């Protein structure tokens, strides 16, 4: 049995159970997706988009679909250990991919706003889903998106009617808990922000154990005219875990979308962020930070598609790599013929802390319009010896000075995260992740 066969037989197995449920249009999408997955198979290093990331370990593991029930009994307190502050706001918790209502909390929201599990939305609000679900994240060329689509079952659904503003961020917490044999979950999220609405959504991926499991997530974001959506993703999976995720955003006129992606965990991680600026005057920000140690592999692929004029994109990714870790940054920017007056800027900076750490960085600019401003730059460097000496000459120990410089490098990106508990939590986490702890830089 080949790797693909295994996943397909899981599909067939589930098909007899819950996967066949839901509206007819979704069943069709699932079947088309599994068919496409069968054709595509898992990508290999020969595939240009996957040339630095070998997914063979995922393909050869017989992952089974997890369920939320096996970890019932998990308490809010246990969960608080692996989250920061998210629990104080509206939050939806998913255990091994399934919504856990007893651990979730919904605070009052403005009229018409929907924050619910996708499974519930498929029953209660299928008409709101149909125009969007699986319409944006294309599975034609992406085996993992196809796989996720084939297994659409649960995740979060957020809907904001016109001009509704959510003051508080919404936290989606995806918890993986070891559960015997290797498990896979396919979280599927849909965020629809109608014209003039505003919200911040945080996706956190955490783990309660050090087991190998596979998270294959897809999030679709649809922002209407003038909508403002901040999306944060904190990937803190177990260091044995596999994490593949696609964030697909479709932006309308004068919408503002920001993505903040922080990758800390996972043995093998691949994040795709695809943004389509499909109307005039769209403004988007893509920030990313990846910290890899040991033998972690973290691949960030972004694609910003400037399809219409007067769009602006600002992309800033930073990586800190130690041990034998491997980082990949591939940033594609396409400026279509119509997209005059596009203003795009891409930066990728990498800090290598060991001889064996490795990074592949690849900017890809495809510009078909003639009146545009596009800049890109990538750097790979080590800690600045002059700066290290300067700090030490003021009395800081060697390791403290190193930590401080690494922290300064990374916190530049963390400070841009608009959701306060996430920003503060990351600041603290960063301290413990660095080689030597330094007192928290609170105040001064």
């Amino acid at each position, binding site marked *: 049995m080949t790797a693909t066969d295994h996943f397909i037989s899981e599909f067939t197995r589930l098909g007899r159970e819950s996967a066949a449920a839901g509206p007819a249009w979704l069943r069709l999408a699932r079947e088309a997706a599994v068919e496409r997955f069968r054709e595509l198979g898992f990508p290999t290093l020969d595939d240009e988009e996957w040339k630095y990331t070998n997914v063979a370990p995922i393909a050869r593991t017989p992952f089974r679909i997890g369920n939320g029930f096996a970890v019932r009994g998990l308490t809010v307190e246990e969960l608080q250990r692996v989250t920061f502050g998210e629990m104080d706001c509206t939050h939806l918790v998913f255990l091994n991919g399934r919504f856990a209502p007893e651990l979730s909390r919904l605070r009052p929201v403005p009229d018409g706003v929907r924050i619910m599990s996708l499974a519930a939305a498929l029953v209660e609000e299928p008409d709101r889903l149909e125009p969007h679900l699986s319409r944006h994240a294309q599975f034609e060329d992406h085996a993992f998106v196809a796989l996720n689509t084939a297994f659409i079952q649960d995740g979060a659904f957020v809907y904001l009617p016109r001009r509704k503003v959510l003051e508080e961020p919404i936290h989606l917490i995806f918890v993986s808990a070891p559960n015997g044999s290797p498990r896979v979950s396919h979280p599927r999220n849909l965020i629809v922000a109608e014209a003039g609405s505003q919200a911040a959504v945080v996706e956190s991926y955490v783990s309660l154990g050090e087991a190998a499991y596979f998270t294959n997530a897809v999030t679709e974001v649809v922002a209407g005219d003038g909508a403002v959506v901040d999306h944060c993703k904190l990937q803190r999976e177990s260091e044995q875990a596999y994490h593949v995720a696609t964030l697909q955003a479709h932006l309308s006129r004068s919408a503002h979308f920001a993505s903040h992606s922080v990758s800390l965990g996972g043995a093998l991680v691949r994040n795709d962020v695809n943004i389509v600026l499909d109307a005039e005057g769209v403004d988007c920000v893509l920030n990313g930070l990846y910290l890899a140690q040991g033998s972690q592999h973290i691949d960030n692929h972004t694609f910003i598609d400037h399809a219409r004029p007067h769009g602006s994109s600002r992309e800033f990714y930073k990586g800190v790599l130690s041990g034998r870790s491997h980082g990949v940054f591939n940033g594609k920017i396409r400026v279509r013929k119509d997209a005059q007056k596009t203003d795009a800027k891409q930066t990728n900076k990498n800090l290598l802390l060991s001889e064996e750490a490795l990074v592949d960085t690849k900017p890809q600019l495809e510009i078909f319009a003639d009146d545009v401003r596009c800049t890109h730059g990538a750097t790979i460097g080590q800690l*600045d*010896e*002059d*700066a290290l*000496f*300067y*700090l*030490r*000459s*003021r*009395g*800081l*120990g*060697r390791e*403290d*000075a190193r930590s*401080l*410089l690494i*922290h*300064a*490098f990374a*916190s*530049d990106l963390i400070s841009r995260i608009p959701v306060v508990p996430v920003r503060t939590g990351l600041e603290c986490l960063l301290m413990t992740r660095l080689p030597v702890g*330094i007192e928290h*830089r609170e*105040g*001064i």
Partner: protein
Amino acid sequence: MLEIKNLRAKVGDREILKGISLTVKTGEVHAIMGPNGSGKSTLAQVLAGRDTYEVTGGEATYQGKDLLEMAPEERARQGLFMAFQYPVEIPGVSTMYLLRAGLNAARKQQGLEELDAMDFLSLVKEQAKLVEMDESLMNRSVNEGFSGGEKKRNEIFQMAVLQPKLAILDETDSGLDIDALRIVANGVNRLRGPDRAIIVVTHYQRLLNYIVPDRVHVLYEGRIVKSGGKELALELEDKGYSWIEEKLARA
């Protein structure tokens, strides 16, 4: 305070310090002058512990201890301070944070309690006023986007906060206008005292109008070729470094 004997240092295959001997007693201010390439900055950096220079011979004793055995941070915690000729920009690390960490590391070493945030803040505010340093600069990343003069003033400000026992100023005067020069000199003069010592490394005599040294040494091709009182600086200014070269050629 500091006793250097026959100190030799090289970078790569090139020997830069070719046997330097110098004694600096507590309470003294020494000026080390010399033309470009004479080894002035190398001497300052070797004393601060920069490892790009390899010490190949000689010794340096600081407060009775082997200075050359100490890590740079150890030297700093024991009260040695160097004002950099070219201060480094460190994005993401504020001067305030750096100073607090440095000050508390030194206090810890001396068995003192760490300064709390309020005490620290009042200390830096007071010192900032004395060196006429804009407070907004202290909260910014170390030297990032500072003008040349601001960087030099930041060095003096750090010196004022850290209150070193032995301060080494590596060409702190170069590139400064007369107002900044006065501020720098005031900072140094305030530090002067019976239990401290200062080494002023400079190319020009100008700074020595404001910081009057007890001893002046002329460094030339890695050796101290002449030492004298404060008049020596004036004589050098008057006759130029070629005077030394000629004298050495005749000898």
